[in-house]
């Protein structure tokens, strides 16, 4: 299955791309994701793990380069094409989609905002990698600050004071930056990553969001990784802690220095990742729906396929409706966001719209997974059918990359403050900086 009427007018090239990625997701990604899901965390990161075989193939297919601007070595895809790749990978496996998503964060940001030197040293080898030699991850979440990190720039100053100190501190020392601290166990791909796009708080910062973003090679002195954690879902992308003990990086590895633009960067990066998460969520929801539809057409109860039962019909329609609305909203948000962040590079995408894409699609994924599992009845609870895994993955999505609650609160602030504005307003950042720095 997995053919559906696409309301966007796809070109022949779009159709071919979609089919190619879908075939890869069906034949390679999904079988490996099921295998990984049933493995122990430690085994999942061993060199002979299926994880690395699939990751290598994704690199070979160039999926890591899809969000790079063309002039920086990107594949010159349209926002719709990038979206389609992510939806299909999300359909195949939330874990692998997340893995190739976070892989891009340190390197794409280095390509867009970093120096020529950093581009040559770190980004070019990553672009040329077709063996899975390099693997990025995104170090945000901390033991004392989970999703809080995402709302820090829109929080009331008095409340922000209560956030306390960051758990990863960065300090300039001559021509180097020194990093110490810990990121929590929920850093996707951390146990298998070679580089981290790291958010760190500046030493003696006046407020929590006074930070920097840097590229940290994870094989340098002072970096340690925690054990991969045993999670409910998303087990096909290992997650674990990162520890930094006086880790020194050259000045040019700090991509975004402390100050106003760190706020803009953090906001805009979340716009980009929100579109990616939205596409993964639609893919996952579609996978659940298609499993349920297929099952309902074949499973006979009361002498007829259950798809003929009115309660099941209603469920299937509602699932379809949710996925369709999520898909085209996420696509529209992706188009707007990618134009501003990747193509024009004006860094003025709309946070409220990008967040809505992520939040809405995540909620849809969970609701659809929930209903799909219900259609399977007790079979849905067994490992005999993939719906059990998809349901666990969909539940994780409500937390991964920011809980839907925090993302919603953050988006709400943008809606309340800026609804009528047809441009990206940065008053929340300037106000905060004025408040703390005068």
């Amino acid at each position: 299955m997995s053919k559906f009427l696409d309301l966007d007018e796809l070109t022949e090239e779009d159709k071919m791309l979609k089919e190619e990625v879908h075939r890869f997701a069906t034949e390679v990604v999904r079988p490996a994701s099921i295998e990984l899901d049933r493995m122990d965390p430690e085994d999942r990161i061993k060199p002979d793990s299926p994880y690395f075989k699939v990751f290598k193939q994704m690199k070979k297919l160039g999926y890591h380069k899809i969000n790079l601007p063309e002039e920086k070595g990107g594949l010159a895809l349209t926002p719709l094409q990038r979206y389609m790749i992510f939806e299909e990978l999300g359909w195949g496996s939330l874990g692998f989609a997340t893995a190739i998503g976070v892989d891009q964060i340190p390197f794409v940001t280095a390509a867009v905002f970093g120096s020529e030197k950093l581009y040559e040293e770190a980004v070019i080898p990553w672009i040329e990698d077709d063996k899975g030699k390099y693997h990025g991850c995104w170090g945000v979440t901390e033991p004392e600050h989970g999703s809080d990190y995402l709302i820090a720039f829109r929080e009331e100053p008095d409340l922000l004071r209560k956030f306390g100190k960051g758990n990863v501190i960065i300090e300039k020392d001559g021509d180097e930056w020194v990093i110490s601290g810990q990121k929590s166990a929920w850093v996707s791909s951390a146990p298998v990553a070679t580089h981290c796009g790291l958010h760190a708080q500046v030493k003696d910062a006046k407020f929590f969001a006074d930070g920097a973003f840097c590229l940290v090679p994870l094989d340098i002195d002072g970096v340690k990784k925690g054990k991969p954690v045993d999670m409910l879902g998303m087990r096909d992308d290992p997650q674990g802690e990162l520890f930094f003990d006086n880790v020194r990086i050259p000045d040019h590895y700090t991509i975004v220095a402390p100050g106003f633009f760190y706020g803009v960067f953090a906001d805009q990066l979340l716009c980009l990742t929100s579109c990616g998460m939205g596409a993964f969520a639609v893919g996952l929801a579609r996978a659940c729906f298609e499993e349920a539809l297929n099952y309902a057409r074949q499973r006979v109860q009361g002498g007829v396929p259950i798809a003929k039962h009115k309660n099941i019909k209603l469920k299937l329609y509602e699932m379809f409706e949710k996925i369709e609305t999520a898909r085209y909203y996420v696509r529209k948000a992706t188009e707007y966001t990618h134009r501003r962040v990747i193509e024009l590079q004006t860094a003025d995408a709309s946070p409220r719209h990008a967040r809505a894409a992520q939040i809405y699609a995540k909620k849809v994924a969970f609701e659809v997974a929930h209903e799909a599992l219900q259609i399977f009845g007790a079979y849905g609870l067994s490992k005999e059918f993939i719906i059990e895994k998809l349901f666990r993955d969909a539940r994780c999505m409500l937390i991964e990359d920011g809980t839907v609650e925090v993302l919603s609160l953050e988006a709400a602030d943008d809606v309340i403050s800026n609804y009528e504005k047809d441009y990206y307003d940065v008053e929340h950042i300037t106000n905060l900086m004025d408040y703390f720095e005068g």
Partner: protein
Amino acid sequence: MAVVYPSKEWMEELYKKVNSDEEYKKVAANWEGDYLCVVELDEEALKDFQNPKVLKGFLEMLDSIPKERREKFKGTVNEGLLVALGLSVDTDISTVDVDELAKKISEMDPKVVLEAAKGASLNMWLDFWHGELRNVAVAAPGEHEDAKFKLIGPYSVFKQLVMGKADAITLVVSGKLKLQGDMGYMMRNMAAVRKFTELMSSIPIES
């Protein structure tokens, strides 16, 4: 045609480039505001000043400031730079033997010069209005301090920008250049800012 940076020719080329670009006119149609670029003296500047062409360009830029406004150099760190180079505010720059001065600079200890002229800068004022660069000029110390935006950074970093080796956004984001001003306005007009810096870095620079 390649021009020397910094020089009056470079400023003239920039003026022509921006004002003849249709796309800039379009994306900056609503832009209202000027920039003061504060190019701070550093070791690379002193190294480049050993090249008579670059030194001549720099001196001609200073010479473009009318004598009465040049008085504003007095008592500032910029006067310190002139003194360190063996010049003064009252020197008739057009009579300076550039080759000889360049040779003299090559014999100087850059650390001593930088210490004597700590904080010295070459200030450039660019006045943009509705898709047009109305004026580009060298500013004397204290002039145009109220510009809508102030871009501050070492000579070596500005050189990277001018030569197209790094773009303005990257340099500002990484903290190499400091930008002061109405950041909300800046973010609403990023397309204009991007286009301007793209035009600036497209001017071929004589090496």
